[in-house]
């Protein structure tokens, strides 16, 4: 592997890691704060991708599609939280798994009814369709752009959670739910906001990812399972863990495909197993 190939693969791995982080961060926040294991989170990613395909078809612009798609995702997340998730706060994980599994069946089927089983693609916006030459290869600008946007979103998330009042409520609600309520904060409203934002993050990730991968049925299932691996490695409930886990998985998956092509799909699970031997609660987890 020459230097250019190596660099390109590092960039690919990091970009994949950022995409995973956007999905996994919502998953881990929703668990850390609300104690909810949400299997339908991957479906939000899929819906985002389909929204960008559908809205692109109408507006002919990815930017417009994202701009219109985000509010749809927020409202959608809010409705799901009110109609289904809010019944689960006091229930066992087992029932959370089952109910959100039922949601996946419904959402996947709705996707098939609305958009069918074909594979679709969304073109890369023209301004970003160039490639940067690297050695004797090229690296698409759009991938760099995606990494950059994700970085901005991640930074924004950090600021919101650590510096704003909403972030304070989120952190307080995660660690001391009753006390926060006693202080007069409507915790169920905060939960609904977090859930909607998590859904929007996953959807956003699906939207900007659509030009890179095709849009196809079941794409949410795949990203969900990988996101699980990410947050198990990072420690469930930890945002920092989700970030480190996403980068590790992104790089491991990318390099696994080159170095161990026959076992590429197993590399990340082996990585997870290794981390678990060392730290059963994940890299940044509080306790098992």
């Amino acid at each position: 592997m020459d230097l250019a190939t190596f660099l390109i693969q590092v960039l690919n791995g990091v970009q994949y890691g950022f995409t995973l982080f956007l999905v996994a961060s919502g998953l881990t926040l929703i668990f850390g704060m609300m104690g909810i294991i949400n299997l339908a989170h991957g479906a939000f990613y899929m819906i985002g991708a389909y929204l960008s395909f559908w809205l692109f078809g109408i507006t002919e612009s990815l930017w417009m599609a994202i701009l219109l798609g985000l509010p749809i995702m927020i409202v959608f997340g809010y409705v799901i939280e009110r109609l289904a998730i809010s019944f689960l706060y006091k229930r066992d994980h087992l029932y959370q798994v089952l109910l959100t599994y039922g949601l996946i069946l419904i959402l996947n089927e709705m996707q098939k009814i609305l958009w069918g089983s074909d594979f679709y693609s969304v073109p890369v916006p023209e301004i970003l369709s160039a490639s940067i030459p690297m050695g004797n290869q090229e690296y698409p600008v759009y991938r760099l752009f995606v990494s950059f946007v994700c970085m901005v979103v991640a930074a924004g998330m950090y600021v919101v959670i650590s510096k704003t009042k909403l972030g304070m409520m989120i952190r307080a609600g995660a660690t001391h739910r009753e006390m926060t309520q006693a202080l007069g904060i409507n915790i169920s409203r905060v939960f609904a906001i977090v859930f909607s934002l998590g859904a929007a993050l996953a959807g956003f990730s699906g939207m900007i990812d659509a030009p890179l991968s095709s849009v196809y049925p079941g794409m949410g299932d795949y990203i969900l399972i990988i996101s699980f691996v990410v947050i198990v490695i990072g420690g469930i409930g930890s945002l920092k863990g989700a970030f480190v886990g996403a980068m590790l998985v992104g790089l491991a998956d990318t390099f696994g495909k080159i170095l161990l092509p026959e076992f590429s799909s197993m590399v990340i699970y082996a990585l997870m197993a290794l981390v678990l031997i060392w730290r059963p609660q994940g890299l940044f987890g509080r306790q098992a």
Partner: protein
Amino acid sequence: MTHSRPLLALLILLLAGLTAFPLFGDEFYQELVIRLMIMGIFAMSLDLLIGFTGLVSFGHAAFFGLSGYMLAIITPEAGPVSIWIALPFCLLVTAGAALVIGWFSVRTSGIYFIMITLAFAQMFYYYFNENQDLGGSDGIFIFYKPTIFIGDFQLLDLNNPHSFYYFVLISLIISYLVLSIILKAPFGQVIRGIHANEARTRALGFNTQRYKLISFVIAGTLAGFAGFLEANLAGIMSPAHLGWHESGTIMMVVILGGMGTLYGPVLGAFAMGFLQDYLQEIWSAHWLLPMGIFVIAVVLFLPGGIAGLIAKLTDKKGDVK
């Protein structure tokens, strides 16, 4: 487990019905009933984990599918293999896999356990999905059912639909009895203790990790047995058999039937199986949509499952089970 009298009557009736079924049921339904009995064994094995040990495994289909693939691997292209070779081989490989996965998984608990079992099962899924020697995503055919000979005497011909039916029925009964005995034995008391309060059970001096691991291996092996039967029935094994939708479905069967009851998951398998069959008939391509609604409805309105419903209907005096 002491069952109430009406429940006992129901179970005996079910058993009698299953025994007599091939005599007058038509062929299509006979195959469906075989599949449901296999699903019943599979669901009971998961109930040992979810309902009795308190381990919510979301990757149980891995063992079901792995065992089926093992049958495909050990069956030669030219003819059948003896069941005395095939069955121990399938079960040993499955038990080995359960031991390894379990060793990692029981170190964790709660949500970690759910996710880790899921992730390991997906690892198997992708392995078989991408292995072109084993048919990749299309799956692999098993052209010959194993033979059951004792010396030169053919005990049972599995190619005969009736014989196969009774072979599966007896397997179901034996699985039920073996699990009942395990649960009555001191081992069963310990794993129930773990379910009720792991810290206390540990304080009593039990190595709870080891008990959980053993429970995981027993459940995995029994799921492997169900997978062995399924591979025999279907004649094909595909990666979908160990995918997470299969794990989700079987978990749903356990809850629908009523976890922690052993007979409940068998009832759940029949209820779920007939429902699936029915929905596929009316909704054809989009049957998963009403199924999803049904799953949510059960979680919200019937968390105790069918067994819980029966207990409520028959236990008018409010007796404690």
